[in-house]
């Protein structure tokens, strides 16, 4: 297991990858990617049992589904940095003939991706299906998923939330990136989510709240706690407060960088804040 220091170094390199990837093609979604960096690093380098040799069916492995597919830069960087494919392939992000599509897809056969996502609101249902499949296979590994908070405005989520409680899908840990931002502004202004913990609880889920979603130790501790709650008849959700754009001062805490790439000058400013720890791709 890597030390906390090593995990932090990985996170810093992942952040460099994210801003460099979106800068290179002048498109993509850095804000949410930076905000969820600790979560991804915790999952892939500490929490999940997974095999970078990649098998779609993932028998005997933990699996992860990214529902808010637009934060593909952090997903791709972490997959590459944990050995699913060469880090040099990150340079092909969003380019023609690449396996690294704007939004994650299985179509080009990129190892580590098990379903296409991007059209929002479908990932929780998919994760529920994969969790049911594990139960049928008597596979006691877990299913993890990540969702945007704005994404919860899609009604299908609430169908899946109802289903998972009714069918006791207790081998599933969903996490919501609760950054309070979406494309058009704050979730509060665009479409208020109301009392989010109460809503999940009312639907029959175990609800965990994480205040420090950009503190890797806190994220790991919360995922460990969630793990101890599995297998007890209820699905589990972690409502994870994050800072959108975390790690790059001018991107932090605003929806402005949801889907915007830095220019050359901004890239230099961002990279100056992120030490190259593992070597750039």
């Amino acid at each position, binding site marked *: 297991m890597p030390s906390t220091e090593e995990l932090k170094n990985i996170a810093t390199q992942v952040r460099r990858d994210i801003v460099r990837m979106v800068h290179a093609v002048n498109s993509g979604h850095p804000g949410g990617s930076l905000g969820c960096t600790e979560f991804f690093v915790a999952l892939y380098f500490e929490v999940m049992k997974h095999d970078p040799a990649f098998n*779609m*069916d*993932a*028998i005997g492995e933990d*699996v992860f*589904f990214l529902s808010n597919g637009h934060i593909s830069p952090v997903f791709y960087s972490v997959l590459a940095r944990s050995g699913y494919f060469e880090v040099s392939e990150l340079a092909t992000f969003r380019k023609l003939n690449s396996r690294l599509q704007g939004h994650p*897809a*299985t*179509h080009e056969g990129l190892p580590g991706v*098990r*379903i*296409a*996502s*991007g*059209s929002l*609101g*479908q*990932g929780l*249902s*998919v*994760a*529920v*299906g*994969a*969790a*049911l*499949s*594990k139960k*049928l*296979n008597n*596979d006691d590994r877990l299913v993890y998923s990540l969702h945007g908070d704005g994404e919860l405005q899609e*009604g*299908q989520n609430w*169908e*899946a939330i*109802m*289903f998972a409680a*009714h*069918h006791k899908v207790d081998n599933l840990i969903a996490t919501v990136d609760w950054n309070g931002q979406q494309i058009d502004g704050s979730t509060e202004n665009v479409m208020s989510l109301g009392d989010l913990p109460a809503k999940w609880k009312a639907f029959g889920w175990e609800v965990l709240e994480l205040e420090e979603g950009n503190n890797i130790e806190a994220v790991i501790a919360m995922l460990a706690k969630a793990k101890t709650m599995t297998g007890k008849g209820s699905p589990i959700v972690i409502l994870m407060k994050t800072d959108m754009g975390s790690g790059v001062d001018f991107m932090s805490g605003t929806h402005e960088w949801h889907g915007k790439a830095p220019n050359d000058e901004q890239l230099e400013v961002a990279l100056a804040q992120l030490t190259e720890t593992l070597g750039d791709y």
Partner: protein
Amino acid sequence: MRLPKKRKKMSDQYEVLGKSDTRSGFGDGLHELGKMNPNVVALCADLIGSLKMQKFIKESPERFFQVGIAEANMMSIAAGLTIGGKIPYTGTFANFSTGRVYDQIRQSIAYSHKNVKICASHAGVTLGEDGATHQILEDIGMMKMLPGMKVVVPCDYTQTKLATIAISKFDGPCYLRFGRPKVPIFTKDDQDFEIGKAQVLTEGNDVTIIACGHLVWKSIEACRILKEKGITAEVINMHTIKPLDEEAILKSIKKTNCVVTAEEHQKYGGLGSSVAQVLTEKYLVPQEFVAVNDSFGESGTPEELMTKYGINTENIVAAVEKVLKRKTISIPQ
């Protein structure tokens, strides 16, 4: 219609062996398949009775998931179930199996190439009295446009049963369309049924009739009426709309030089338009369409609706007579 024995031809080989709904063929096929293949799982959105899924559920309750009235959730859950090797069969009405959940199918199933079998009952106007809200006539078009999606529309109870089992044998998404009313059973358990391989039901020289679903029996009926008028029709059961058996179409039309397509679907985007594409690309002959002409349905009995919307036996006969007149104009190939 009674014909003297000595005149017995291929069209007369198809006798009514019984009557049943194609959805019962699905239910019985799913039951049989469930016993044979432990990876088959089924989901339903609060229409177990309508989809005839009770036998499967009784046999394998642990492999059935009641989703409630939440079709979008059902489609994406089905996609997730494939990860781990399950073969999910989803069951609801055709309307809620396609239009209501198109984006879920597009992203999580078709684009992601998941082995989900979308099984859709109560397709078309023969759903009857419930009316146009439930009578989808656009589903074949929507589904055939999705890259990699197979589209299968069997013609009677027995064929639907066989099709339900057959679609489990390939890896990839499939749309299986069937219906509500009790209709003649005329195909047999030992028929030569293969996905993507059309069945030539009657041989004829004057016209090719290509039909799917409920319109196949209507085409056989039309064939008998045409026979009385001295016209021999080659009836092809095109139970697979995609991939389309182009070879069977070309073989027949090179002999007959004209074609009538017959389907319980919109004229735009259904079987007829798929056939027309083959004709324009490969071998141009006149075609007439027996299909619903840019219209929604309404309440009524299945037979009344088929007549009102121009997709009954007499419409096939009229279309044949029309296309035969057009055949005299020669089209340079």
